[in-house]
């Protein structure tokens, strides 16, 4: 469960998030959409404690993360898996070292045991084991995202998954595979997930709970039917280029 309560966040004099509140129950998925620079990714950074809000409260599984000690925050981060924009793989490490990074750093597991878990994880995210010794820049964009998802999953066995633009810049086949993987994770592992994206067609595939962020404020919070019927000019403006996509989608149950 994740809850934002009247969160305000600014960098210098510029307000990035302006009084945002929302709640995601355990096991649910939420899509956060909005134009570039609207504050979507910042919300994920706030959940991870990578940025501190000026005002308001953030609750993760019912517990406030504001003002807590860094060590306590680390414990909370262990329940959160984050897939950063473009993967954020460690470019000097191999795929295997990236995926097994958390285990290498934080456990006393033997190398061959970690390698076994890494190979299992690569299979789970739909990658061939033979790429284990490759460097990230030898992989395609889609493969990098899947390695990043594998790294997040093997790192912490998360109850919450955060995805920052997981399908941006990928070809349709790769987008399809990443979306399928996210949906599979939601159903098989019952994780609470937040997907930040500005690609509406992909968003509809993952969940029917949406937030549209406009200039640091929530312009919309609801499902696809409510979105279609919204008269808010900010929502109408944002959805204008995607009118056809929305017309073809009906509210539905997602795993």
């Amino acid at each position, binding site marked *: 469960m994740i809850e934002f309560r009247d969160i305000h966040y600014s960098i210098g004099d510029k307000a990035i998030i302006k009084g945002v509140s929302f709640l995601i129950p355990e096991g649910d998925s939420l899509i956060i959409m909005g134009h570039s620079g609207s504050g979507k990714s910042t919300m994920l950074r706030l959940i*991870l404690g*990578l940025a501190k809000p000026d005002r308001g409260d953030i609750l993760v599984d019912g517990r406030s993360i504001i003002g807590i000690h860094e060590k306590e925050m680390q414990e909370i981060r*262990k329940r959160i898996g984050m897939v950063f924009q473009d993967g*954020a793989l460690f*470019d000097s490490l191999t795929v295997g070292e990236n995926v097994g*990074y958390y285990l290498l*750093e934080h456990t006393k597991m033997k190398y061959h045991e970690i390698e076994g878990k890494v190979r299992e994880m690569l299979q789970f995210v739909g990658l061939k084991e033979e790429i284990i010794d490759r460097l990230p820049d030898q992989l395609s964009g889609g493969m990098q995202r899947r390695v990043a998802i594998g790294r997040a999953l093997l*790192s912490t066995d998360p109850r919450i998954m955060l995805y920052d633009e997981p399908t941006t810049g990928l070809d349709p086949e790769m987008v399809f595979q990443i979306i399928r993987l996210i949906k599979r994770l939601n159903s098989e592992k019952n994780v609470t997930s937040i997907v930040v994206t500005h690609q509406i067609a992909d968003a509809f595939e993952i969940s029917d709970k949406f937030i549209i962020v406009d200039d640091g404020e929530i312009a919309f919070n609801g499902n696809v039917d409510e979105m279609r019927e919204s008269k808010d000019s900010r929502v109408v403006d944002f959805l204008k280029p995607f009118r056809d996509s929305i017309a073809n989608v009906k509210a539905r149950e997602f795993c």
Partner: protein
Amino acid sequence: MKLIEVFAGWIKAFAYESQRLFYFSLKMIASLFGRPFYASETLEQMYLIGVGSLFFVMLTGISAGQAMAVQFSNELADFGSKGYLGRVMAIAIIRELGPVLAGLMVAARVASGITAELGSMKSSNQIDALIAFGINPVKKLAAPRLIALIIMVPVLTILCDVISLLGGWIIAIFIAHITSTTYWVAVKERLIFGNLFIGLAKPVVFALIIAFISCYKGFTAEGGTKGVGKATTDSVVLTSITILVSNFVVTKVVFSLIKGYL
């Protein structure tokens, strides 16, 4: 009025940046204590900094040593004191030339590398990824570089001193026409505690300057590739200037502390 406002803005920005650098430096020092210790990363950095800079330090050291020996021997010849060449060379190299030359070479080569690497990691979210995985990025990335620099800059300085004195020795024999014994005995006369202390205190200070500024600039780089490029340039310029300014300050401070040993 506007000029004053602009000037005040600069002062404010400088004070703010200095404050952030100071706090970051304290964080780096604090990160040296307590587990985990990243021994393999530290050894890797020692290799990259030490072995990687060795050729440049040696090349500049021998060239500068020879150039200085030519100048000094000409001047000393006017007073019939060419026998003092080794003495003058030892003081100039051990106290000033060796530390500054090695410091500037490491600053040019290593500070740029550190800032570029850390800046790229920052802009590609790799540093945030480390935090997300429960790793203290300052301890993981900055502390090994700080330790490696504190060890390797003095080592490179000693090697620079030795090679510069050897360069001076070549000039002493073939151009100044003084004997090896005269040169090395004169050098040995000035290998005293005070000179050696000042010659080894400076590289430690320079190592701290290079580590603090280059890591800070890398960790705070913003604005993508362009921002990393700017941070890298700033890092090299700032470390070089700070080394030259602090060289004077350290010289004055150490001179007043150990006057009796010089």
